């Protein structure tokens, strides 16, 4: 009994002691001095391995940590030299030769060579890496066949070098052979998964941790990168601290010495971070805040290479009748949705591919003018299809994943169809993964969907609905559409755009999708943040960012439209420029 009495006396003391210890542990070594700048990156990146990245959070980090053959110009968005100082294409457009810049180093001091690129691109194609964007390189001769010819153990059966036209002739020459000429290959080469990784560092990691290299080699203490910044510390769901990589070839042009990337998904919290100066840039604001942000100098909504539409299950009556699909496509008040639901000035869209590419006109849903006329045609189409008061259209189910705006858009459309066409539309929300699974199995009538461009070219949108494509999930497979895409792949400009436009026209007459609007990015950017320019891919490399000193801020505000409301900036008044820029301004 003795110990029982002891325990009884200590019972009361035991509980608080344990908890205090836990508190002490967590707060030790948690504090940081402030970085030169910080930005909200949305969700925690699923991986810092560039080849395994999937979404925007991963892409933004790759932009800071790595640099590919080419990067996009912050102002124009056109590809400019990155690790490749120059490049040339063969007469038949099938072979691209890149000249790798000398003197640019990995963070462990080693020189960046063409071998690193060859190694990285092989890794991307190799199914064992588990890269989702491997198909970016299927334009390379032999790449697709090699990647898909897989043995029992999941490894490619044939050797890479002898089958795929990707070779590093020497340390500074990198040659790529294509299946067919690709004019937009440079737009492709900008994609994040195509950046190099340090071959020697990764092979050393594989040797050192045979079973844990996946987890170890991207850790800050072992990470080897070649971009403008290097990895200092990573705290999951909190922040990733970056610092300037002095060995980077253009280090002189980089302004920020330290940069924080915050991981926080809650939009209202991100807005609060911005308003209290914790972050300089935010890529999305809560919809409810938009009306109050309009007209502010730091609120810069910009159209974005993303298209929002509904997938239609063409196999399921009554949606198997194209007239019904066309009626539904016509009976959507897109302007109302853009103004009152998404509120960010989204452009109503009557096509799949956003009209944001130079020289691209594409096709549009055939309409007869005003919304009222479209509604009349819609009703007329329904009667043609044999539906009317006597034989009402069976109820249609609007299927969506449970993000807020999805729900609101579906509610508005369901309400509109009920009022205008007398269709009973029911709403069915599902948790994200269940929604994807339901889409894949065509267990839906109409499903709210969207597609973001992988690279700056219309083909990325149109290829989604090619016959047999994994991502189509509409049950629509049209040989004519497939032929058009095949011809476009082989064509050169300007015929290519024309063929793709013809394909889109076919898509918009068969209507496996009901286009709604083009995405708009609702970013908030601190007025002092320089080197930040809107572009269709919302692709911003922090290399070009800097803090504008007072003089420059006043000058840029002078150019603003007087109606724009000025807001308090949280950046340093004296500004922060790259060493090169300081010298240039001093000499002027």
């Amino acid at each position, binding site marked *: 009994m003795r110990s029982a009495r002891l325990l009884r006396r200590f019972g009361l003391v035991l509980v608080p002691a344990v908890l205090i210890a836990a508190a002490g542990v967590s707060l030790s070594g948690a504090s940081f001095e402030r970085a030169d700048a910080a930005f909200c990156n949305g969700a925690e990146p699923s991986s810092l391995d560039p080849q395994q990245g999937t979404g925007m959070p991963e892409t933004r980090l790759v932009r800071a940590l790595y640099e590919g053959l080419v990067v996009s110009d912050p102002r124009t968005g056109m590809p400019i030299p990155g690790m490749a100082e120059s490049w040339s294409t063969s007469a038949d457009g099938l072979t691209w030769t890149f000249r790798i810049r000398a003197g640019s180093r990995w963070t462990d001091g080693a020189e960046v060579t063409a071998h690193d690129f060859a190694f990285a691109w092989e890794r991307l194609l190799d199914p064992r890496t588990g890269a989702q964007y491997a198909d970016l390189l299927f334009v390379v001769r032999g790449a697709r066949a090699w990647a898909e010819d897989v043995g029992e153990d999941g490894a490619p059966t044939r050797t890479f070098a002898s089958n795929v036209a990707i070779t590093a002739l020497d340390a500074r020459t990198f040659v790529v052979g294509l299946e067919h000429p690709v004019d937009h290959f440079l737009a492709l080469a900008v994609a994040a998964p195509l950046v190099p990784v340090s071959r020697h560092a990764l092979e050393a990691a594989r040797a050192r941790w045979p079973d844990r290299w996946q987890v170890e080699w991207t850790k800050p203490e072992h990470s080897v990168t070649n971009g403008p910044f290097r990895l200092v510390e990573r705290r999951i769901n909190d922040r990733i601290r970056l610092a300037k990589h002095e060995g980077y070839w253009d280090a002189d042009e980089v302004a920020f010495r330290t940069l924080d990337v915050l991981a926080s998904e809650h939009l209202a919290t991100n807005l609060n971070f911005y308003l209290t100066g914790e972050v300089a840039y935010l890529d999305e604001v809560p919809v409810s805040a938009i*009306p109050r942000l309009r007209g502010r100098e730091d609120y810069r909504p910009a159209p974005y290479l993303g298209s929002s539409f509904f997938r239609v299950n063409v196999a399921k009556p009554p949606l198997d009748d194209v007239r019904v699909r066309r009626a539904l496509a016509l009976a959507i008040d897109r302007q109302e949705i853009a103004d009152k*639901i998404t509120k960010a000035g989204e452009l109503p869209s009557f096509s799949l591919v956003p009209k944001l590419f130079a020289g691209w006109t594409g096709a549009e849903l055939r309409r007869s003018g005003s919304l009222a006329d479209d509604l009349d045609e819609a009703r007329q189409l329904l009667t043609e299809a044999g539906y009317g008061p006597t034989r009402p259209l069976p109820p249609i189910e609007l299927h969506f994943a449970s993000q807020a705006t999805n729900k609101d858009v579906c509610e508005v459309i369901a309400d509109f169809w009920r009022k205008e066409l007398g269709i009973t539309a029911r709403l069915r929300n599902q948790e994200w993964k269940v929604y994807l699974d339901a889409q894949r199995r065509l267990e839906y009538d109409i499903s709210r969907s969207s597609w973001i461009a992988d690279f700056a070219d219309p083909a990325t949108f149109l290829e989604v609905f090619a016959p047999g494509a994994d991502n189509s999930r509409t049950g629509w497979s049209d040989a004519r559409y497939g032929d058009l895409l095949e011809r476009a792949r082989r064509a050169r400009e300007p015929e290519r755009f024309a063929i793709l436009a013809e394909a889109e026209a076919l898509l918009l007459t068969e209507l496996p999708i009901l286009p709604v609007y083009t995405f708009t990015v609702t970013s908030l950017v601190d007025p002092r943040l320089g080197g930040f320019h809107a572009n269709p891919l919302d692709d911003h490399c922090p290399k070009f960012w800097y803090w504008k000193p007072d003089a420059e801020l006043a000058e840029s505000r002078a150019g603003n439209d007087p109606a724009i409301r000025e807001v308090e900036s949280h950046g340093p008044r004296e500004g922060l420029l790259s060493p090169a820029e300081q010298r240039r301004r001093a000499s002027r």
Partner: protein
Amino acid sequence: MKRQRDDAARIDAALASPSPWRRAWEDLRANRPAFVALAFLALVAIGSLFAPLLPLPSPIALDLRDEPLAPIAPWTSFIVHGFEPEYWNLSAVDEALVALRRAIFGDLQTAAWLGTDSKGRDLLSRIVWGSRTSLAVGMLATLTSLLVGVTWGAVAGLVGGRVDQILMRIVDALYSLPFIFVVIFLITVIDGWREELAATIGLERESIFYVTIGLFYWLTMARVVRGQVLQLKNSEFIAAARLAGARTPWLVRVHVLPNVLGIVIVYLTLSIPSILLFESFLSFLGLGIEAPKVSWGLLAVDGADAINPLGLDWWLVIGPAAAMGSVLLALNVLGDGLRDALDPKGGRG
């Protein structure tokens, strides 16, 4: 002789002690705040049941606007025209009530006294219709935690030993099941046979949703009751009853439960709010009630988004919070009143 009869009558009256339940009811009626609370709750229940009858705008009628409409003082505009009977698929009874309402009020409806949300839906109407879901959820979960939780805790506490261990470890296990997975699993299973279930036994997703919540809410009650019973277990009257041959079920029903009633009632009035919020948490994850139906929890989630430093649509928060708050306050006051009324020691001074 008459005087003697009066005296005797008076003393008899004083002696004739009413049954404890009747005395409790009188006690409750005498305790004014508790009685007011009871009346308020009854009013809310009736209002929620006969919501289709009230001249409220439709809870889901959209009037798309840029910013939510602020509340209007009722005296400035009381009743307006323009009622459209827009509802989700209602039960037959509700349909009849809506028809009756249109017969009485025609197309009149109340003005936006509590303002509207950003999609122009009337907040007052959504609160009243939302109360249907929330009170149903509250009721079911309370019932589950009463029936299952109290008995489970009482038996575990009383019997002790191996039985207690097993029962309590099951509670621990249930506690730590990853409830999100279980909820997703249940919802997807139901979704799988959606049509058949709805057709055969009318069990559609919403009722499964209530059951899921009920599944999680008796656990804490069981633990709290067990704690109390452990205290009671060694008291003399339990030993005496056991001596008189009382078996556990009888002990639980007659001796333990009335003694544990105080804590149980208090705990019930405390757990209802967290049940409502659990429902909103599930709706937030897309696992809850189906759009366009509405519940207080959902309104609270929308309301919370409205608090941002740029501008405060305060009514979107205050409305649902006031509705939930007043019901919970009434429950607490009623709970205390019940606790005192049912307390055999005659409600200490």
